[in-house]
């Protein structure tokens, strides 16, 4: 490896006389940042134990070693399978995943109402262990994605297969009986035996691939045909079909699965990707308009959605209201208010891990994990976590900008955007910026589906980044003036 890093190919084109310098894979940077990430996670874990019980937590060595082994296994896999991939994505994802485990451990330890021994109803005594196991599966999925998909373009072949799979996964909970699909009021699960899977998390990946493949194929017709009205290029009526189908599908999710968050994610993903593919503002406006109409109608028609709006507008007014399932128009913002109270309690510097009372907020280990961090790590810590998410998104977008193949570009852009959108929807929801909707916090929330899907997504992004940064094949021998110049 040489010391000079350049964009692959660019150097060769600019200076045909010299050999293109070999860009760095930057795996050492990744390793160093990983050691840093593992260090931060272990320090947080020790800190939580000290804060809760005044002594180092049991299993510091074991959990620490397990976590370190997992992330270094991922690192070795990247060295072998995607040596040119972005060096920051893996450490950032590992850090978020590790901090999530620490918070889940901390909540499990303090139990309901702060009484150790009595567990929070939605947590078991082995929740932390499960979360570590899910992380292992997630990292395995990450490695599998890198191993199986050696070139992102191969996915384009399965555009419609994955599209159909995505829709089936998405729609499956809707057609299942409620006993097999409803958890905490959202009909987005498949419950088999003791396990519950949120298929929407995987559908997100499948549909991103489908959208990318479909839009790359159709983008010319979507971009160019149509009339110009009031300075906006309107698409032809028949080209509206796919948008309307996506809109209809997301509305159906909204109505049948009472899940405005997932619905917003899918529709947002689709609109962002169609905009990038066509560069036509009209698609953006049509998409946003349709979503606004759909949400407004839903808030009027569905008591569930309407209640969410009221709770968002007046979180403290309804803080002491408790609703039963039968009360359709009852508005309770107990959870939202407790989350806000927690953040306020933490203030700027936070209470310190183990010193706050995040267990007061219902579902602090999943939907409201961000408020738990806000409480114990303070505004400072919460900002750091948001910036880690922001960096991860930025690395994804960077890969999208760098990669030349349109399909990969669109896919990377879509995945990075949907990550940002998901963080916005859940963090904005629990901090009172937008109405609360139940999507998971990527990498952090308790539960396997989201974690595994998120790791798979990082696998895809790193594969695309690897493709983007991989240097052009070097000539095997000096062929004089002959150069291999890749089409850009």
């Amino acid at each position, binding site marked *: 490896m040489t010391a000079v890093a350049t964009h692959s190919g660019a150097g060769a084109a600019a200076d045909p006389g010299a050999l293109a310098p070999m860009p760095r894979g930057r795996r050492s940077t990744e390793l160093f940042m990983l050691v840093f990430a593992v260090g931060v996670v272990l320090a947080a874990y020790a800190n939580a134990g000290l804060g809760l019980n005044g002594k180092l937590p049991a299993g510091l060595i074991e959990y620490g070693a397990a976590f370190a082994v997992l992330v270094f296994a991922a690192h070795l896999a990247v060295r072998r399978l995607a040596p040119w991939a972005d060096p920051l994505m893996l450490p950032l994802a590992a850090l978020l995943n590790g901090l999530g485990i620490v918070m889940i451990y901390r909540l499990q330890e303090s139990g309901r109402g702060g009484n150790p021994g009595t567990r929070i109803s939605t947590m078991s005594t082995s929740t932390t262990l499960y979360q570590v196991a899910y992380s292992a599966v997630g990292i395995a999925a990450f490695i599998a994605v890198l191993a199986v998909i050696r070139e992102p373009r191969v996915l384009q072949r399965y555009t419609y297969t994955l599209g159909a799979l995505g829709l089936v996964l998405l729609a499956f909970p809707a057609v299942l009986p409620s006993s097999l699909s409803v958890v905490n009021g959202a009909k987005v699960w498949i419950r088999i035996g003791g396990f519950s899977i949120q298929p929407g998390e995987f559908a997100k990946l499948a549909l991103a691939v489908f959208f990318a493949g479909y839009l790359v194929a159709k983008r010319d017709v979507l971009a160019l045909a149509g009339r110009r009205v009031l300075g906006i290029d309107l698409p032809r009526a028949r080209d509206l079909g796919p948008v309307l189908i996506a809109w209809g599908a997301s509305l159906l999710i909204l109505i049948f699965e009472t899940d405005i968050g997932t619905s917003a994610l899918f529709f947002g993903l689709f609109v962002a990707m169609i905009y990038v593919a066509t560069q036509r503002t009209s698609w953006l406006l049509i998409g946003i308009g349709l979503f606004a109409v759909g949400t407004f109608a839903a808030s009027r028609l569905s008591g569930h959605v309407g209640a969410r709006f009221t709770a968002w507008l007046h979180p403290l007014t309804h803080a002491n209201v408790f609703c039963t399932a039968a009360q359709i128009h009852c508005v309770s913002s107990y959870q939202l208010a407790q989350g806000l109270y927690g953040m306020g309690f933490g203030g700027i510097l936070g209470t310190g891990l183990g010193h706050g009372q995040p267990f007061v907020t219902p579902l602090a280990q999943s939907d409201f994990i961000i408020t738990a961090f*806000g409480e114990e790590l303070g505004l400072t810590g919460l900002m750091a976590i948001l910036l880690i998410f922001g960096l991860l998104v930025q690395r994804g977008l960077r890969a999208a900008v760098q990669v030349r193949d349109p399909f990969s570009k669109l896919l990377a852009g879509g995945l990075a955007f949907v990550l940002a959108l998901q*963080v916005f929807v859940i963090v904005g929801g629990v901090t009172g910026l937008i109405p609360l909707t139940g999507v998971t916090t990527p990498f952090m929330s308790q539960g396997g589906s989201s974690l595994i899907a998120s790791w798979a997504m990082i696998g895809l992004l790193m594969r695309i980044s690897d493709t983007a940064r991989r240097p052009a094949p070097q000539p095997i021998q000096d062929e004089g003036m002959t150069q291999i110049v890749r089409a850009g």
Partner: protein
Amino acid sequence: MNRAMLRLSLACLVMFALLLINVTYVQAFKATSLASGPGNVRIFNEQFQYKRGAIVAGGTAGGITIAESRLTKGNIYQRYYPSGPVYAPVTGYDSIFGATGIEAAEDKELAGTDPRLEVHNLINLITGKPKLGATVYLTIDPKAQQAAYAGLKSLGRPSGLVAIDPKTGAILAMASYPSYNPNQYATLNGHRLDKIDLRNRRNPSQPLLNRAINETFPPGSSFKVVTSSAAFSTGKVASTSSTVSAPQPLKLPNGNLLNNDAGEICGNGHPQIIQAFWLSCNTAFGELGIKVGGAALRQYADKFGMNNSHLTIPLQVSASVFPRVTDPSLTAFSAIGQFDDQVTPLQEAMFAAAIANHGTLMRPYLVSQVQAPDLQTIQNASRSVLSQAVSQQVASNLQKMMIQVVANPAGTAHDIFMPNLEIAGKTGTAQNSSTLDDSVFTCFTPVGVRNRTIAVGVVVQGGGFGAAAAAPIAQQVIKAYLRVP
């Protein structure tokens, strides 16, 4: 597509910027208002996660702890009151639903949230030590307090007692009977607490009522201390040997008759005021009251601390009342502590304390010192004059007369006479709506022991004649405080 991708990046940037701005708003700017939001239990829960300061009776050296926090299972601190009902009117309680007494009045210090403790807390935060509350030291003398509660309890009647150091205003004892056990309120079980609290509130004997400072009784003849003071001060009576008219009965301007207690003749009908005082003649002081006038009586009652609804020690003290009277007939009744006169036991103690301190009434107070967890004193008692009730000369007249109440064989409180310790006092027997009169006594030690003096006020509801029920308890408290056998 890169141009659109750039715009997409911009959208992501905007989303994250919005999130960051919003969390800053919530955590940095809205935190204070959220802290008092409905259903916010965090601030409240937090108080059980660190050690609240102790309350100590009897000063920094050799005091006894009357309230402290103890670690219970689950790393939660629970309040404990070692002496329970004896100190309940002083400590009050600190429960999960609220606090009373010193627990409420000194909450900021005990909880460690007082601004003066912020530096200590910050140091503890940095050094990783747990947050601690400050220790509050009280002026209460444990021996006097114990004697006071035991005395009131032995009578078994609703009663209150306050003892004051006349020179400083330091409250030496504050007892109320029937009392309650504040340990019941230390439970962390909300349902149980609700039940206990409801039972106490519905209890007709009102154990939660602090009769020492929050219940008023008619002062009866003990008010003659004020009437005499007003008479001397306004020059209506020249000296203790001046004679006053004491007809039996006294015919009031409105035609009604005012009688002496048992209808007896007061001396020869023209006694010296000192004799009328030790005999506690109603007619003599009724007529004096008419002479002095309602306005002047009220003026002197105010100087002794009555009609003051803003007095805090730091517990809120109910105002003792001397009404605005213009009708001479009613003034006569007011002058002997009847009609609408109402006093707290604390006010009774203040009558004696003002006389004992040569006419200067010190502001009564309970807290002698507040000590930060590192033993640094953050607050000392601030002694201050509440008012100059009477001149030194008038005070010495009153002292002379009050000594005779006990020392003279015919005095109403001669039963508590002790050759080795001089007590000056005034009894009161106040008629109330029930069959048994309230027994009232206000007294002080003019000389005291080793430069220590004490003033005591006692009211025993339905205790009968003033000297019978109230005076012996006052005597016990005095003996306990001065360590006189």
